[in-house]
């Protein structure tokens, strides 16, 4: 099983270290850091590698490396999932995960580790159950500004930095609240003609609960939700949660009023007895953050951006070229994308770039930059509202005369963005009920949606 668990700072310092089996040398912390930092030819090291008979498995979160070592033939996803869980638990208890948060809470984290792992075997990993065993007070740390992701860029609900131990407080400062976030990450590829040739949403319903006494909840999703597996190639239809009726997507794909999901999985707390008939999920939420459901779909997406690109020679000079980009934002006018970045790789013989942008006033250009090293041209916009239409022009100075091949060497264009209160799949929460009959009990309920780009690429 797991021989050692340790946490390394971004510079490779050990901040937490536990040895369980004593069969891996102490120098493993350095071995790990050096191997992952100087992996062959600067490539990113894979999350699992073997050095001198010791396997190193790691995940990175909040700038720190969480690492497990072993000499056994363990299940790697088991260890990686466990490391991810540790990082979630640290977030639940310390408000966030970062070098600072861990250093400030190290007795608490050792206490948690005691319960999480015994002799290298994972034990209790529910944030809720762990509360019984924890005696240390947390020091809540908000992540440093440099690591703070824009809302929704990471998969989990962000912007809330508080410890689950808050729900134990009796000093009147306790705030009962619950966050339900629908987080969707879009992976879309457009071909040169502007058609989406592949598109997928990886979505997740994330719950972060700070409700004292854990009252039961009821969540209702769209009535027109259809969960199916593709039928065309002989897949048996059926609910993704096991059993269910024999829908086939083919029959419904044309009907755009349906929200079609390819596959869903649910957290074990979800009671799905009313899901087939009413699309209702009942649950008793444990404290802390967890994914109530993960889903994926490639159907009927609302694609938030379209783009056209043209590269042409400059009649005035054969060492110049002009690239025009036009970008439409196809979300409802009351929604807006934040932190939009348009990234355009240019060929090596582009020496200089000059850019002009036409954009409606509110879509202020935050700036553009061209890097000689990576040959990436990047525009950044602060806020782009639905219905807007942006034009970008880049005048390239070339070190060799313009050739037709330049057209294929420019691109592909890659977009990064976050759209709050928008779900590309149109999945939505119809209601979120807290099932406690008490007139005075009125905790805050937050339902949020966010769609962000995972990979949003226009080929040229």
């Amino acid at each position, binding site marked *: 099983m797991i021989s050692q668990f340790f946490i390394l700072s971004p510079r490779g310092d050990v901040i937490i270290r536990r040895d369980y089996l004593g*069969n891996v040398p102490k120098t493993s912390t350095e071995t790990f850091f*050096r191997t992952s930092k100087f992996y062959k030819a600067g490539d990113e090291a894979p999350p*699992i590698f073997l050095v001198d008979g010791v396997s190193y498995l*790691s995940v990175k979160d909040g700038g720190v490396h969480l690492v497990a070592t072993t*000499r056994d033939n363990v299940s790697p*996803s088991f260890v990686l999932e466990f490391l991810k869980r540790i990082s979630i638990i640290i977030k639940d208890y310390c408000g966030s995960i970062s070098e600072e948060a861990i250093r400030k*809470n190290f007795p608490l984290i050792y206490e948690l580790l005691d319960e999480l792992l015994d002799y290298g075997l994972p034990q209790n990993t529910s944030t809720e159950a762990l509360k019984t065993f924890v005696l240390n007070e947390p020091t809540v740390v908000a992540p440093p500004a440099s690591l703070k992701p824009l809302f929704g860029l990471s998969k989990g609900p962000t912007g809330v930095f508080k410890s689950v131990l808050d729900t134990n407080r009796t000093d009147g400062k306790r705030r009962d609240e619950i966050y339900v976030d629908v987080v969707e990450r879009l992976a879309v590829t457009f071909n040169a003609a502007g058609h989406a040739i*592949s598109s997928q949403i990886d979505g997740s319903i994330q719950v972060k609960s700070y409700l004292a006494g854990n009252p039961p909840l009821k969540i209702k999703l769209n009535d027109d939700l259809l969960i199916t597996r593709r039928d065309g190639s002989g897949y048996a239809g059926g609910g993704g949660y*096991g059993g269910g009726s024999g829908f086939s997507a083919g029959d419904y794909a044309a009907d755009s009023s349906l929200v079609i999901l390819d596959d869903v999985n649910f957290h074990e707390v979800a009671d799905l007895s009313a899901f087939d008939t009413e699309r209702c999920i009942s649950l008793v939420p444990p404290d802390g953050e967890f994914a109530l459901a993960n889903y994926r779909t490639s159907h009927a997406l609302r694609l938030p951006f379209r783009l056209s690109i043209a590269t042409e020679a400059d009649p005035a000079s054969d060492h110049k070229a002009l690239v025009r980009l036009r970008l439409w934002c196809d979300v409802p006018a009351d929604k807006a994308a934040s932190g939009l970045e348009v990234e355009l790789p240019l060929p090596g013989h582009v020496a200089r770039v000059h850019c002009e942008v036409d954009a409606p006033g509110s879509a202020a250009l935050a700036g553009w930059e061209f890097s000689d090293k990576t040959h990436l041209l990047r525009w950044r916009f602060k806020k782009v509202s639905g219905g807007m239409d942006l034009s970008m022009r880049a005048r390239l100075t070339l070190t060799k005369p313009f050739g037709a091949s330049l057209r*294929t060497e420019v691109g592909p264009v890659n977009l990064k963005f976050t759209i709050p209160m928008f779900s590309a799949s149109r999945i939505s929460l119809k209601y979120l009920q807290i099932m406690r009959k008490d007139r005075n009990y009125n905790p805050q309920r937050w339902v949020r949606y966010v769609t962000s780009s995972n990979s949003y690429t226009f080929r040229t």
Partner: protein
Amino acid sequence: MADSKYFSTTKKGEIHELKEELASLDRPKKKEAVKKVIAAMTVGKDVSMLFPHVVNCMQTEDLELKKLVYLYLINYAKTQPDLAIMAVNTFVKDSQEPNPLIRALAVRTMGCIRVDKITEYLCDPLQRCLKDDDPYVRKTAAVCVAKLFDINPELVEDRGFLDMLRDMLSDANPMVVANALAALQEIQEISGKEVLQITSHMLFKLLAALNECTEWGQVFILDALVSYQVQDSKDAEKIVERVLPRLQHVNSAVVLSAAKVVLRMMEEVRSEELVKVWSKKMGPPLVTLLSAEPEVQYVALRNISLIVQRWPSILANEVKVFFCKYNDPIYVKMEKLEIMIALASERNIDQVLLEFKEYAQEVDVDFVRKAVRAIGRCAVSLEKAAQRCISVLLELIQTKVNYVVQEAVIVIKDIFRRYPNQYESIIGQLCDNLESLDEPEAKASMVWIIGEYADRIDNADELLETFLETFPEETAMVQLQLLTATVKLFLKKPTDSVQRMIQLVLSAATNETDNPDLRDRAYVYWRLLSTDPEAAKDVVLANKPVITDDSSQLEPALLKALMEQISSLASVYHKPADTFVSRQRLAVQTVDTLAAARSFAEEDVAAAAAAAPQATGNGAPAAAAAAVSSAPVVDLLGEDLLGDSTPAAAPAAPAATPGGLDDLLGGLDVAPAAAAAPPAAAPAAAAAAADPFDLLGGMAAAAPAATAAAPSLPQLLGGEKGKGLTVYGQLKRVGGRVVYQLHVNNGSATSVDGLMLQVNNNSFGLAPADQNVAVGTLAPGARGSAAVPMAYNPAKLAQGPANMKLQVAMRSNQLGVFYWDDNIPLAPLLEEGGTIDGQAFLAAWRGLPQEAVQKLDVTIADVEAAKARLGAVNLFVLAHRPVPGTGQDALYVTGRVFGSMQVLLELRLMRGTPGVDVSFKSERQELAAAVFAVVRSSLT
């Protein structure tokens, strides 16, 4: 409360301060102190000297404090087994506390203390806890059985713990079931015996527990199910029915383990219908794994690439989900590419090709190359798509990107071999790009193509001639191809100019090369051509067998083995488990084996002595244990002190004659070799006698032996520079660590204390792990010894070529700072266990530049003894084989220098004849001289 303050750097006298705080009666203060100790422990500082002080805090009502103390105990009990005994009594008492948390804590911690003496005391509490009313205690006790088994298997079997564990599989609490199962699996692994046989009765219980368990427990159960021998199809069906819902779990480990069970059962059932139904259910969950974080995706992809080889139908229609995303990490992209090739079919090839073409224009060179190869591999495996693949390759060649063109040429050669005489029309386009070929594999491929189709390429002779101009500089691969291609050309078009070419090539390949393969092949051709040109045609121009694409296909036997290890590291490495798993557990520490590790324990003697009487307060067992252990402690320390530094028995004498100290030490320096260490010197003398020319060498060997018996450290500081302080010292290797052995002699008129050490940046990143030079306060005339542990600190690594200089600074509270320069001897920097396997050695040897060579003037009569001697200085002999035809022996030796620098050596010697040729390779060539010196001194 911000605990990060504990990580602030060591201040002077910190240890002393901590001791006082640990003894404080104020509980919060005490707790703070223990936290500081734990923080120091985490960052790797040695705080083992505080052991007795921390253990004294153990008996407390404060659970938080108790946990902290236990944490410390687990870490250091190994190095202080005799002191750890002091804690036993508290453990036993805690295991009977009314609070289940404390009971569990006690039994959990006791099991982590891997000291065999403690295990005897563990059995009774463990037995009680296995039957505890509280499931939390029971589940902790279950794991503890596995811990105990690792330390003392006989004890576990004698006490019937294994049966108790098996009974626990029927426990009402799923956590207990899961832990009992995990413990049994672990014991089975350690012992290699079958302690866990799943009967059909047990199977039923496990399946029932599956739904109740935590996700981790579910994985344990699913992994256990795989080893169940099914009786018939019905049995398998029943299991799969219960396991299938697990495929919907959010935890990818549960999904993969469930998939493993279903795949296993697919091998068992005969019904094709069932296999088809199950296959369909597996596809979507596997695809869903690709929505997870890249780390989880990577594991899933490595497993999927095995699954699609065994059961192609499961994902046959899903190739699209494996298309690479622009921002996938490179390790994910590479795996996706491999799976896309496996799933490419005539139905989806157009889509797939479009993707490959897109990837071939990305920026990452390795990825681009792999994408081009992927196109070639699809062409080879899909006959109907070959033409389309070739057109894409030609388009890519038009981009003129150097590495794309070269890669394309290589795969086109494969396509020609797969489909002979079909696509030669494109040769002209290839020939337009000859100048961009500069990599051997691409050149060799192009030369092969020219030779193979010499009769259809009008200017084949001219083309080959240009290649031949650089014949002597080419790599062997290209030379061989050039030779063969020229012969083919000659057989097909025997013109005069070609005749001249062939003579040129044959003579170059036979006379001007030292590559035996090339020479032999050239002779064969020569003979053939000169005796029977027709036969030569039959041989050289014979039809070649058609190739298939098997570059990603695993051997059926290996695939079968790996399919049984789905969702394990073996499935990620694509290597069977026994190639990388070794059952290596730390041997249980006993007092005897610790002798070597105990090098800086002076302070603890006093502490132990002080602590022992206190321990008697804790009750009978501890007192008895302390009594038992105190005797060896004293012995041990006696030996150690003798070995390391000031002779413990003699401190009175030097103290009495302060003036003569230097003399005395000086005398000692010479004396031991002759007198003080006669037993150690004897074998060396015998060796010297056997070889009269090597008398000096013999003395050198005797010298280190003598240092072990009495101090003979070189002087580092003295005279005026030392302001009365004289320091002797040297870097040594003690108990697997590098320590700076220091001997300080206070000849000044004041008491000196607060000695601290620092070193300047050096070539090895050596830095003191603890800056304190633990000699305490030295009164005028007094002397003290300390061993400062050194650790690797990358920040201390000096750039530039390695040198053996170490600049040292030592400060004292009274006399200020002193500086001296020391030489770093290489021997102490060679690490235990610094060996690598033969494959790695070969690969590294080939990969490194020219070696340094030296002939050592030593004689080896007995190779086995020489190996042992090298081993003693942590140079490991990987292989020993005779050098054919010379009567010599070759030894392949490796070692790891502090800071993970591998050095590789080849020794060639003639038994009993003076002279050993040593070749040295390393990334740091500058170490050669130092390594030669170590080899020389170890062998003489």
